[in-house]
């Protein structure tokens, strides 16, 4: 069983597809469930998986906490649980077998680090946040803030939510451009979609994205990388959604009784003008 959060972005869809395609390839009977952005739906799905006595459960948790009761049930039923993508906070670490994921925190940090290097540690930043309260938005915000803390020259002058949406990114950017005018030097967007929306707003304001305003973003979906190649986004940090192979390898090991690594991270890369062109042809999502 695989309890996905929803289908809120291209990234998420690629993630789901990866899981499904790999299952088909290996002849695994995958029960897929879409939480539609609600934790209660995911819990319901897990309970249903337990009732159906699946061999293993993969959970892409929507939020960090609140999984203990249902995981306890799974444990009692002897079903191993693999947490993917985002981590969870629990009082009892034995409730799940292992965690395979992307590290949002690391992503935010990488973005900040790249920025510091590129700008020499100074610049006025506007931040385009994701949906308030969502885990990636929370972590990408915090990590970035920590990352730039050591560079007093880098300052976030404004921060608004574009809801991870392209239209949101555009709308917020339009407003911020009018508010701050040319004093905006850097845009940090929590995902590529918002960055792409912001680019439109910047262009419509008669400025050149990537040149007049440095744009840093996260996800590295294909369109984002294309924008990097086109010079409109300066840098995007990859958040690899192709979990399928690794997850099933782990499941196989678990079922075979082998030990698995407690926490493992997908290798996230960073694309900027130097390597984007080379990476583009091989992007799968």
């Amino acid at each position, binding site marked *: 069983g695989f309890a996905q959060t929803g289908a809120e972005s291209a990234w998420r869809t690629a993630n789901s597809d990866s899981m499904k395609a790999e299952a088909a390839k290996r002849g695994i009977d995958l029960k897929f469930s879409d939480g539609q*952005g609600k934790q*209660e*739906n995911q819990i319901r799905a897990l309970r249903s998986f337990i009732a159906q006595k699946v061999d293993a459960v993969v959970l892409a948790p929507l*939020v*960090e*906490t*609140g999984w*203990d009761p249902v995981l*306890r049930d799974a444990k009692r039923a002897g079903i191993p649980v693999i947490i993917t993508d985002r981590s969870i906070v629990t009082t009892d670490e034995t409730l799940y077998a292992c965690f395979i994921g992307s590290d949002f925190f690391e992503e935010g940090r990488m973005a900040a680090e790249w920025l510091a290097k590129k700008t020499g540690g100074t610049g006025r930043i506007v931040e385009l946040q994701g949906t308030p*309260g969502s885990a990636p938005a929370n972590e990408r915000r915090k990590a970035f803030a920590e990352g730039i803390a050591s560079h007093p020259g880098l300052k976030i002058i404004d921060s608004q939510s574009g809801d991870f949406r392209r239209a949101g990114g555009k709308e917020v950017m339009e407003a911020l451009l009018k508010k701050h005018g040319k004093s905006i030097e850097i845009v940090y967007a929590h995902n590529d979609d918002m960055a792409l929306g912001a680019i439109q707003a910047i262009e419509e304001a008669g400025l050149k994205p990537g040149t007049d305003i440095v744009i840093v973003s996260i996800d590295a979906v294909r369109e984002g990388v294309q924008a990097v190649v086109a010079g409109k986004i300066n840098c995007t940090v990859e958040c690899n959604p192709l979990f399928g192979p690794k997850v099933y390898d782990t499941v196989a090991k678990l079922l075979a009784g082998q030990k698995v690594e407690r926490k493992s991270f997908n290798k996230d890369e960073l694309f900027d003008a130097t390597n984007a062109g080379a990476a583009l042809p091989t992007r799968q999502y």
Partner: protein
Amino acid sequence: MTKSSSISSRQLPLIVTAVIFAALFGTAAHFYEGFFSARVFISLLSENAFLGIAAVGMTLVIFSGGIDLSVGAVIGFTSIFTATLIERHQVAPGLAWMLGLAAGAGLGAGMGALIHFFRLPPFLITLAGMFLARGAGFWISTDSIGIGHELYGKISGYEWVFGTVVVPANALFLLAVMLAGWGVAHHTRFGRTLLAVGGNEQSALLMGLPIGPAKIGVYTVNGLCAALAGIVATLYTGSGNPSMGLGLELDAIAIVVMGGTLLSGGRGHMLGTLLGVLIFGTIQAAILFDGRLSSWWMRIVVGALLLVFILLQRLFLRRKRS
């Protein structure tokens, strides 16, 4: 009590709903192995406990011809509010719950007062209530907060074992609230006044019924139910989460309507809401048992089943009427 023929005609929608539920459950049981079991049936209640509790309050509001869009947000608010109190401020859970319930009831009372005294449309005012509660929840914390208090483990671990049937605490909560809701709706003056207000407010006024207390009261009770649902949600997940219950109000409304209660007010039955919860749960459970649907097909199937259900209900009722 003797059942005359007209009683059964008044309860026809209820019977129709029950029949359709049975048919739906039967169909799912036919297609999916292991579906027809006490465990699945109980899970229809336990997995929808806080949704069901919210639906009980919503039923009363809809009886009175109103609507309350704020319940989902109140659930989110209460859940993060109590979690913060317990975890960050070391408040005893009992006290935290009281405070949470008071906050929910207070918001409800405020909305009810606006709706009654200024004759404002419930849809708008409760929409504002939803924004307020959501904003307040996020203001407390944008992160979810795990609750480690031992009482929580105890309560959520509690089960009522009845032979081979295991009924978890959640389901018991839901049934208790349902029972209370049924009592209020059908056996108190308050409940009957609500139906009268929903049936024809002007008449209810002229009949000398206490309209103001009824209307303000029903939003208060509903706020209380929503807060209770929020607390049950924290028990269910062992954590508080400000985005809990997103969009839940629409599910709750759908459940109430599936139970045969008229959205325009004045007509309905609490038992119908219980059936509505079961039907909603069956649809969800059947989709999970299938487990092959991609995200979008899932939505389409839920929509289609909703449609089929509504059409069947219409068909039956129309037949029987004429």
